[in-house]
């Protein structure tokens, strides 16, 4: 099966949050409380166990004294090298035939290790349920030949869904066209070269500001990269313990 994903273009986002609603409704997710955060129109604040699409709103002043919004529909990135998947000790988190990263709720035993392992802070464990949850890329809809609920609902096609290679082509063309028009457009996580730490995201973005403005890490990487030296330190520590035992028993 072809690897599919999302290309989210913030220049088309109108901040309607249809994506958030569609996701909650299709997946029958519980609400997160109806609170006003005071953070512009962002009353969701972050992705979590029962929030799998989150629209960011950050007001900024433009060079000519006007006000602009950084609006973006954030989602699980379904990384090529996923921190949650590599950390999961039960094998509950798997790579599906669509290339997405999926948490099997019937296997997950709620150890919570995937939560700090995600460089984007996506997956979360619900204390009352006990298990970890995140965006499934609408696995059930994909298996039925449908596109994910958020992409279907998005009125401006800011959220595009499709085969990853096609999305990457369209994204490059779109970014180039916008730059010609004077927009500071850049792609985020589009492939392995752009984001070596995750080896590319299956849900990547076109943004018009720094990643931090959208609460995205500028240079994320799957924690497993470079952990070899940590294991070496553990082996050295273990050898030290055995050595200490030997030395002190003389």
């Amino acid at each position, binding site marked *: 099966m072809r690897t599919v994903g999302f290309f989210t273009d913030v220049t088309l986002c109108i901040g309607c949050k249809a994506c958030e609603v569609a996701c909650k409704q299709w997946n029958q997710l519980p609400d997160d409380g109806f609170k006003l*955060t005071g*953070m512009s129109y962002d009353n969701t*604040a*972050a992705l979590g166990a029962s929030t799998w699409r989150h629209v*960011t709103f*950050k007001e900024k002043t433009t060079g000519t004294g006007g006000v602009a919004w950084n609006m973006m529909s954030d989602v699980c990135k379904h990384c090529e090298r996923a*921190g949650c998947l590599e*950390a999961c*000790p*039960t*094998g*509950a988190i798997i790579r599906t035939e669509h290339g997405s990263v999926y948490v099997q709720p019937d*296997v*997950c*035993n*709620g*150890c*919570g*290790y995937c*939560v*700090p*392992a*995600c*460089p*984007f*802070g996506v*997956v979360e464990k619900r*204390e009352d*349920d*006990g298990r*970890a949850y995140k965006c499934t890329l609408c696995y059930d809809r994909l298996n039925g030949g449908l596109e994910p609920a958020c992409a279907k609902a998005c009125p401006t096609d800011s959220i595009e869904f499709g085969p990853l290679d096609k999305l990457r082509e369209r994204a490059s063309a779109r970014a180039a066209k916008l730059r010609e028009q004077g927009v500071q457009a850049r792609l985020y996580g589009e492939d392995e070269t752009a984001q070596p730490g995750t080896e590319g995201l299956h849900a990547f973005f076109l943004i018009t500001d720094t990643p*931090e*403005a*959208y*609460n*995205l*890490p*500028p*240079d*994320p990487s799957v*924690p*497993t990269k470079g*952990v070899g*030296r*940590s294991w*070496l*330190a*553990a*082996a*050295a*520590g*273990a*050898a*030290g*313990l055995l050595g*200490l*035992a*030997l030395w*002190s*028993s003389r």
Partner: protein
Amino acid sequence: MITPPTTRDGRNLDRRIADEHGEGAGIEVQRPDVAWPLSKEPEQVSDTYYDLPVVKAAPWKGYVPAYFYLGGLGGAAATLIPMTKGREARRLHWIASVAETAGAVCLIADLGKPLRFLNMMRVFRPTSPMNMGTWILSVASGAGGLGLLVDSKALAVTAATAGSMLSTYTGVLLGNTAVPVWRATRRRIPLWFAASSAASLASLLEVLGMPRRRYSLAAKAAEIAGMSAVEHAADAAGVGEPLREGRSGQLWRASKWLGLASFAATALRRERLAGVLGTASAVLGRFAIVEAGRASANDPRATFAPQRR
């Protein structure tokens, strides 16, 4: 083409073509800003997204740092078993088995679905320190438990080797995350955990009246050095604040001072006191580093700053 306004008084008029006969057209505007006494300064350019965290803290309860202490203690005890004989060996064997079992119980209690704890053994996944730890713990406690029934050198050596890894893999567990302070110190924490495990054992032996002086002095000195090494690595990466500030800073400082006091007490041959101080130091140290992880994950600047370099 739309002509841009040519007035700067907030009226947005083009004086060349405007018909200025409105009721407010006669107001002489000297300073546009005085009309908005309730307005605040435009939001300072913030380097974060409303100071919200970028990554998420581990949702662990106190069971996990408690396991770090118990597993470390048990693993260190196991390393001494092949080097000792008779009554001392049997006592160490019991300490190792009880500590490792209590540690396993803590881990199971921390799970969101404790009855599914056996799912940890569905896979053998080297990328996951937590999975590797499950296997290490199983081998260590299995060999240790069997060794209590069957007197076998092979079992003792197996338990000792697995035990030594049991005391240190937990450092890799912390480092294999996106938490800034753990990530930055991931080559130091396993070494510190090794020393802390030895110091935990040394202190317990002192409390039980079975002190091992050389072991104790070396382990406690190494533990203090290990903590300094962790601090230095964290500061070098610019993420050392949780080890100085807040609740985690308090726990860390307390652990260090208790560790120094424990070392001094051992040196002065006040073993029972040294044991109590050393145990407190080791336990607090484990809780400190886990709490520091929570503070670090909740600080967006700690995630952004190292990645901007």
